[in-house]
């Protein structure tokens, strides 16, 4: 047990060093990125709009689930390919444990504000979703309703599944963050 804690701390130090080396202290990811470890192996997918704080990516996980969540569980931050790339901090609540994620990330992919991180998706929203009707105020529908509306509209909007998913995440972040 003690040994695993020591490993975790070593890993933590490693993560700190990575983010310190490749990213500024605070910010938000401005695109989806796949993290790699020192050997180049992909360890996790992190989604745009995920916060980097003090050089760390902090997320919450449920037992048996590789999804990374925000503290309130309303936003996903990504998914782990390799569970060993997450380091538990020891904090836990409501069946979730707090983790830190390790990996390499370029500082170009981190914006100083959430608005800046979302700007390319915002542009996409206002281009694609205002070509038949006006762009809808994001808060006109709930997060859940937007999911249904996106599934109705993505074919009318003639966009790919990944763009539709990106737009939905953008809307969700605007409403909830």
């Amino acid at each position, binding site marked *: 047990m003690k040994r695993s804690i020591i490993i975790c701390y070593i890993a933590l130090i490693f993560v700190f060093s990575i983010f310190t080396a490749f990213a500024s202290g605070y910010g938000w990811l401005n695109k989806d990125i796949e993290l790699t470890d020192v050997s180049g192996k992909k360890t996790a997918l992190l989604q745009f709009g995920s916060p980097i704080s003090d050089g760390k990516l902090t997320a919450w996980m449920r037992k048996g689930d590789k999804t990374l969540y925000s503290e309130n569980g309303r936003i996903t931050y990504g998914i782990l390919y390799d569970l060993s790339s997450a380091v538990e901090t020891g904090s836990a609540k409501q069946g979730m444990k707090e983790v830190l994620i390790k990996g390499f990330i370029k500082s170009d992919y981190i914006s100083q504000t959430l608005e800046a991180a979302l700007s390319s998706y915002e542009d996409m929203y206002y281009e694609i979703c205002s070509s038949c009707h006006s762009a809808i105020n994001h808060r006109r529908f709930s997060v859940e*309703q937007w999911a249904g509306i996106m599934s109705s509209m993505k074919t*009318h909007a003639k966009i790919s599944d990944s763009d539709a998913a990106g737009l939905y995440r953008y809307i969700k972040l605007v409403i909830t963050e």
Partner: protein
Amino acid sequence: MNGYDGISRRDLLKMGLFSSALMMSGAYNELFAMTNSASGVKIPHATHFGAVMAVVSGSRVMGVEPHKNDYAPTSMLYSLPEYVHSQNRIKYPCVRKSFLAGKRDTSLRGCEEFVRVDWKTALDLVAKILRDVKENYGNESIYRPSFAGWSHPGVIGRPDILQGRFMGLFGGFTDTIGDYSAGAATHILPHVMGGLEIYSYQTTYEMIAKHTKTMVLWGSDPFKTFRISYSVPDHTRIEWFVNMKNAGMKFISIDPVYTETAKFMDAEWIPIKPNTDVAMIMAICFELFTTNEYDSSFINKYTVGFDIFKNYITGKHDGVRKSPEWAEKICGVSAGTIRRLAFEFRKTGTLLTSHYGCQRADNGEQFHWSLITLACMLGQVGTPGGGYHFGNGGLSYSGKVMPRRMSQGRNLARTVIPASRIGEMLLNPGRTIDFNGNKITYPKISLLHNMGSNIITQQPNTNELLEGMRSVENIITHEIVWNATAKYSDIVLPVTSTFERNDITYGDPYSHTHIWAMKQVIPPLYEAKDDYWVLTELAKRLGFEKEFTEGRSQMDWIRWSYANVETNMPFEQFWRQGFIEFKVPSKNKRFVRLEDYRKNPNTSPLFTPSGRIEIFSEKVASFGYDDCPGHPTWIEPKEWLGADLAQTHKYHLLSIHPKHRMHSQMDNISLKEQYKIKGREPVVINPEDAWELGIKDGDLVEVYNERGSIICGAQISSTMRRNVVRVDEGAWYSPEDACGVGARCLGGNVNVLTPSRPTSKLAQACAAHSCLVSLKKIQGKIKNNEAYKNPVVITEE
């Protein structure tokens, strides 16, 4: 039923079945009556009425040849040349005489002459007004009524989109939420189904034709609805209905009107009283529940809130059992018929179909919610041939990426009003209304800027609107023809018709099987200019030309749009041949709405708070609206045949879509000779009602209520239920006194009579179908309909 497979339109034609079936119905005899003998240069183009080869001689469109893939070209399509060259074309930029002199007497609109000005003068004046309004009152005081895009199907030159882009760059404007078509449904269904549903893809016709045994047309007339399209129709939906009939499908039409579709399909007609659909649905639900004939396993697995609903229909809440006998007194359909239908609907393969007409009524939110609840009790939702089927979905999807579309971008003003609230907003700046759990406060409007929209025929309660327009200091309209909105404007800018501009667009908005080149067919007529050119010139004057155009001409934008298309065909080849056709993959032909949800509601939940179909919505209930409670409920409309007002006004007026025009477009051309009566819009009256009123076929009739009065020509027809009359929407407005508000309309513009009252606090949507009227035969002479007479334009020529 499987016999439809492999029988194509050409096969039917060979067998003579298609032509004889259609001819016998009378529904499409225009197909065979129309010929086109024009000769000249042929140029491909596409319109809301269909794709064509325009036949051109010099600068005149001599005729059109429908595209080979158009299954049932309409009279409107063949009339396009006449529409383009109509005597109502606006020839020059015009300014109302006193307005040009700097006076702002808004009461003179509609009865004062215009002065011809050159484009520079007009554009400078418009730019000055925009600047002044922004500076003095803010961007919120600019209102854009056009939002739907029914004036032009191109993806680059659509007036409403171009205007949104222009106004957004200018700092914003007050905009419209929702639409007139389906405003109630689009606001309630996200609470019930987690999405818009009525604009979603629906079960394909391939699956319906194969699996449906009985199709219920609830307030639905597909043959009329599908004559036009939001983009470019190929009328293959009609082909599906012909095939379904030939395959022996049973049709039931629940409608106050015996529609052309019902007639063609040999449908059983259930002539329900208008606006009472929900009561009838409640009674069917009651019958299914009390006889234990409903699908309780479906209800338990896929829905929430049924316990509350069942207490409502059995009267535990209000002491009123929603039995067939109860409903009979409301909807006029016998209890026996309701019971029989409840039994028939339980059979496998019953599809409840509807469009939007039933929800354009008081408490219109309840209609689709009720029908979905009934479909759930029948337990066939998510099956190939059963459940419900809403709106225009049904054609299978090619899956191809379509041309990229010009976008509007951001609107910084953020002020919005629900569609149908224009008159109320103009008359009540500062008033706060409820809206879908929120509040909206009306801005004070100083500039009403129209592009691609004829609001005087579109908006209910014309007199309220005209009164409201008098409070607006400036009205600017970009138009093709001198319709009423142009006549009631201060500045009128003549714009090109579709045949005079280049553009690109796609085929059916659901199937995506075509991309269409909209090649310019003739040079702009008179001094008309493209909307894009007009707004570019204005943007130049206002300092954001570069942002508006991004350095592109309209043709550059068309190439930009085409670059998005999934094809190897060079643009030049596409532009030359005029179209690209895509095939539909087999798997897309097997699409069934909510099939995934039915398979596993846990892994494919709906996007409602519960993840299930919400027969009871806690969210809706939490709003506390007395006119839209938390479950489907029969609420008496303000105006219907059971209202006290029906003692005074005994007839329920339906203002449904016209057959021979698209809203008000094409009301002014010779097609009207086919259906107008003594130059007026027909009012269709049941023979017994006509006899009681002493009205004969062809008589001139005044139709009136407290909101106004219109003159129509009587058409006596047993296709109307008793005490229900019909005046199709879209006839051009022709006031007896053009300077006054409240004048009789001599042309029969039905919105003079319809209420602007909203459906409920939830959607605040159009409820024009809740309308009572009286009728009387006109005695003596009456002025001519002058709707198609152009205003006086002073020129210095």
